[in-house]
């Protein structure tokens, strides 16, 4: 099981991707529970806004695209955790 967060856009237009393989984490069960708890099916389309980041989050079979202003609550938590696991 893996989760991939890719951030595109922003004023710089530079695409960055962070990936976490759940099995390789010190706490895989916590990761799996957290990923399963995310509101994957509740994501609505966001309106494009100049120079804001766009996040594409993939965790098979799920894939969502979130505008920067939608990355709140558990999604923000997810992005922070994935980035932290990648050391940035």
């Amino acid at each position: 099981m893996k989760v991939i967060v890719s951030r595109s856009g922003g004023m710089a237009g530079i695409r960055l991707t962070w990936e976490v393989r759940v099995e390789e984490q010190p706490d895989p069960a916590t990761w799996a529970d957290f990923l399963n708890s995310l509101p994957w099916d509740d994501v609505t389309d966001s309106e494009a806004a100049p120079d804001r980041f766009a996040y594409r989050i993939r965790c098979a079979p799920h894939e969502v695209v979130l505008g920067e202003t939608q990355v709140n609550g558990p999604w923000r938590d997810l992005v922070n955790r994935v980035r932290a696991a990648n050391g940035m």
Partner: protein
Amino acid sequence: MDTPHPGPDLHPHCTIVPPYLLVRLAKLDDPRFAQAAAAARESLLRDSQIRQLRGGEHPFTYSGARTLPARTPGESDRTISDAGGQERLPGRRVRAEGQPAGSDPAVNEAYDSLGATQALFWTQFGRDSIDGLGLPMDATVHYGKQYDNAFWDGERMVFGDGDGQVFNRFTISPSVIGHELTHGVTQFTANLQYEGQSGALNESISDVFGALVEQHTRGQSSAEASWLIGDGLFTDQVEGVALRSMKAPGTAYNDDVLGKDPQPGSMADYIETDDDNGGVHLNSGIPNRAFYLVADALGGNAWERPGRIWYNTLTGTGLGRESDFAAFAAATAATAAQLHGIGGAAHNAVLQAWVTVGVMTGRE
């Protein structure tokens, strides 16, 4: 939200409410202000009709407003706020128009570059601020923690400090500040949809006027200019000179961590992608290079003939919200012909530029 409360005298026929306040009121969702918001929308509509009738004059001075001092058209009205590392807007107000520079470089840079952007638009194109009606320029610095971005949120410009490893603070580059403010100008004019080719045009227009802000401030001719966007934004640890090169898209950086600058410089390399609203920051390289080619062909100062052709196209009637590259190319050619004559140097330079980047075939 620090929305000003509409007074009882707010009325559709009242002309003393400054347009920026009308914009804020018109956006209000709070049912308590529904009537005022409706009135403001009506007033805005009417003002824009007046503006069209007057054909680009500067009808507003705020001499009648009680809440604002008299304002001379073309004078900047800047307010810089400090978000203090939070992601809340607007943050604490730290410098208003006319106040002296302080010790915070981000505040000073934002203030100075907003002034430089106002100077370009006003002195070269006769445009008074973002909306053409003297809209106050509001900016927030120190937004978020190590935030690697700058953006225009529909009302203000917002700048992050960067992470310090890849990015410096985003106020460091006047072209970035000019870029953000131009998103506001586009919003009030062609309002190009931020998706696909119209989105890439929206991005390119911000780069064009961002670059012109720098060139105009520095007094650089087209030949002397770097044509870089975001010069100085990368730290020393990055292999790269800037975010983008208008002269040579795809050459601004080539770095272990960031990869290679992916911008195409012609339609042959156009990028189809679902990311970045359809690659708006990538495919903007194509119209960016077209502008550079026009400036290079005509020589002299790029904010003069080339800038005027792009400005008149942006603010004229030839563009729609969903205009694509071909429509924009045709509109710039028509503007060049209108300003400088069919078959003149400017018209030919514009046509040739769009052919070189593969948007026109040469048979138009």
